[in-house]
């Protein structure tokens, strides 16, 4: 597969997952607002803080009202991580590789984009927020379903899945992080009924509430951390994402799991192994926020490793030396190619 095509597929998939997750962030807050009358506007600033775009927000918006935050995270074209920017970038990437993805995938991204560009989209986001962000989330999920059902599960699909899962691991950890920011103003709430409400809103935003209940029953911080970070079977849990991402990475390089032949395989393998042998108690003792910070830093490094290994434009001389593991000279290689 062409490096450029692989790169576009990778980013297409990441951006769709990102858009879906921003919608989930907003939904956490909408849920919390509904459940906590009086919490009001102060709920919205932490959201911008968690997405990591606080500076940018401060430059262009005066106050963190619901409307401002929704606009910034959803429609603001100058915010590169807004839903609109993400879907647009996903579409541009898809457009550049239309011949390599299924036409259903392209058609769906195109519809997703047109949905956001509808005239009444902004009004719908403020007035019927719940439905609107539901629809965004649903569009993202549909894309994943269409991808799985229409694209050959070969190299391109593995890049798709790899991208989606790395993005998702990052975003699930951020959703968990929201909780900390929201709770900071009143640490006394820990253990009160409000806390229960907040944890369930948070789980619902990761589509995790029912599955959590089946697994752990009572809402307890340690179990929520266990479920969203360390569960091996829940598809939005960080460990699950990393395990499957690791499978795709090895499918791409055709190397066995358990070892590594390139940088990202080494990085991802190490991270996955650490998580696999960590307990939720250890994470909480170390500090959830610090844990999430470290996780995000390492996911970024893995992303860079993937880019260097598969997408970067190497010069052909370097590559031919690399491709000659058995001491063949370039002339021999060229002769072999010509025969």
């Amino acid at each position: 597969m062409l490096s450029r095509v692989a790169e576009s597929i990778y980013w297409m998939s990441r951006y769709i997952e990102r858009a879906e997750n921003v919608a989930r962030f907003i939904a956490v807050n909408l849920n919390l607002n509904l459940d906590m009358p009086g919490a009001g506007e102060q709920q919205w600033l932490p959201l911008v803080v968690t997405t990591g775009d606080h500076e940018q927000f401060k430059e262009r918006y005066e106050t963190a009202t619901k409307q401002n935050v929704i606009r910034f995270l959803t429609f603001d074209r100058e915010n590169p991580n807004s839903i609109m920017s993400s879907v647009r970038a996903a579409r541009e990437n898809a457009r550049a590789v239309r011949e390599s993805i299924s036409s259903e995938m392209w058609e769906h991204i195109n519809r997703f984009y047109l949905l956001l560009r509808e005239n009444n989209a902004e009004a719908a986001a403020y007035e019927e927020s719940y439905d609107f962000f539901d629809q965004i989330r649903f569009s993202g999920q549909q894309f994943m379903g269409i991808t799985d059902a229409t694209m050959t599960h070969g190299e391109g699909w593995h890049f798709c899945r790899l991208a989606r899962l790395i993005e998702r691991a990052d975003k699930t950890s951020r959703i968990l992080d929201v909780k900390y920011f929201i709770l900071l103003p009143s640490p006394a709430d820990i253990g009160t009924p409000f806390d229960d409400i907040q944890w369930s809103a948070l789980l619902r935003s990761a589509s995790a509430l029912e599955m959590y209940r089946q697994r752990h029953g009572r809402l307890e911080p340690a179990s929520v951390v266990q479920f969203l970070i360390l569960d091996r079977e829940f598809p939005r849990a960080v460990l699950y994402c990393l395990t499957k991402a690791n499978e795709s990475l090895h499918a791409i390089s055709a190397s066995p799991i358990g070892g590594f032949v390139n940088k990202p395989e080494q990085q991802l393998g190490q991270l996955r192994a650490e998580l696999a042998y960590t307990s939720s108690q250890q994470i909480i003792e170390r500090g959830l926020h610090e844990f999430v910070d470290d996780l995000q830093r390492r996911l970024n490094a893995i992303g860079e490793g993937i880019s260097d290994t598969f997408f970067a434009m190497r010069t052909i001389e370097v590559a031919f030396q690399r491709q000659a593991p058995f001491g063949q000279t370039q002339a021999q290689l060229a002769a072999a190619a010509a025969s």
Partner: protein
Amino acid sequence: MKLPDTVIPPAVGFDAYDVGDFYDEMFDGDRQPRAHYRALYDRFWQLRTDELERRQLAAERSMRRLGITFSVYGDQEGSERIIPFDICPRIIPEAEWKWLERGLKQRIIALNKFIDDIYHKQMIVRDGVIPEFVVRSCATLRQQCMGLDPPMGIWCHITGVDLVRDREGQFYVLEDNLRCPSGVSYVLQNRQLIKQTFPQIFEQAHVLPVDDYCSRLLDALQAQMMHRVRQPHVVLLTPGSFNSAYFEHSYLAQQMGIPLVEGRDLVVHDSYVYMRTTRGFERVDVIYRRIDDDFLDPQAFRPDSMLGVPGLMQAYREGHVALANAPGAGIADDKVVYAYVPEIIRYYLDEEPILPNVETFVCWDETQRNHVLANLDKMVVKPANESGGYGMLIGPRSTKEEQATFADLIRAKPRNYIAQPTLNLSRVPVLTENGMEGRHVDLRPFVVYGKEIYVLPGGLTRVALRKGSLVVNSSQGGGSKDTWVMCDRSSPVS
């Protein structure tokens, strides 16, 4: 129940239809539907206008959803537009098509021989059929291609020949496009749309299929390197997603199942071409390139080109890669060379041309130039090397000032201009806000030259959607229609 021929009730959509002083593809001079249009006409007559409009809108929605678009240069947010699609098909009876097909094959064989001759001994110049000065002054002549022998001796693998009908209904060749003719993806998509729009009519109409175009094209491309490689790797080289024909590039690559590459994806090493993949470098054997000669290789052509692949021409020269169309093939696109095509056919094939040229005056010839200058208000003046309908003067629609400007241009560079009488292009009904109205059309059949020559049945019918307009180019407000070559067995038995 069959209605007697004399009392055909008008279709609702055709109530106010005016055939005008033109050849109408659907109606004869007595405003009766032609035999091959009869079934369609009857069906339209059963439909209400609003039903037609509904189907038209459904087709347009479908195009936008599928992203069947072209880009308009210099236009940011709205830079993707759909090519307007009109639901009333243009029909050509099979017998007439057979004749066109023979004429097109004859023309392509002769042009291919001509290009090959020009880059070798130039016998046609030595024998005095074409003046040396005409050949030497062609902007599309590529000195870099002198003496080259492309695989199988084929230079023009894919050609889109523009045909028009005049008032009498006679077909003429308007121009030959041998560089990177585009539009075939619209033929294929239009066919899909019309099948959705009028499934019953289509089923009964016995239309020759177009769906095998991509297989034929892939066969022809692979055939180029079969003598060296058992399974040649074919790629389609595009200038990128900002090119106006990008949709077509990606569509064709997808349909053929070949990689769509940009210049930066390819690299030449020891005169072999490779593409950069996630698993290292892979050999490329055949390149269907949709980039003009000038941008193909900065080492051989324009040094400032960012789109091409350095060293590509050397790999081509050594026979390690095939290019379609061959660089240099554009020599036969020059409109002054066009004027000589009938002579070219006689010279190489010793046959009379089947398809006539439009009468053409070459301005470098003094007698012809004077005739052109004296009749600027009646003629169409075209630059010898432009495509896309740019830089033309349409005499009868022009102002005195425009004519004066063109007279100066012609006198300054007579070699760069040709002139033709203004043709009354034929018309086909089009669905408009005011019901069905006649609009001018041309026809671009596509010819693929591989082991044999394949002519795609029908081709792209382009429509000048603006009332009265003669310009059919999509960059200038043109639309398109599905083109049916209808088997004779579907004609009503009289």
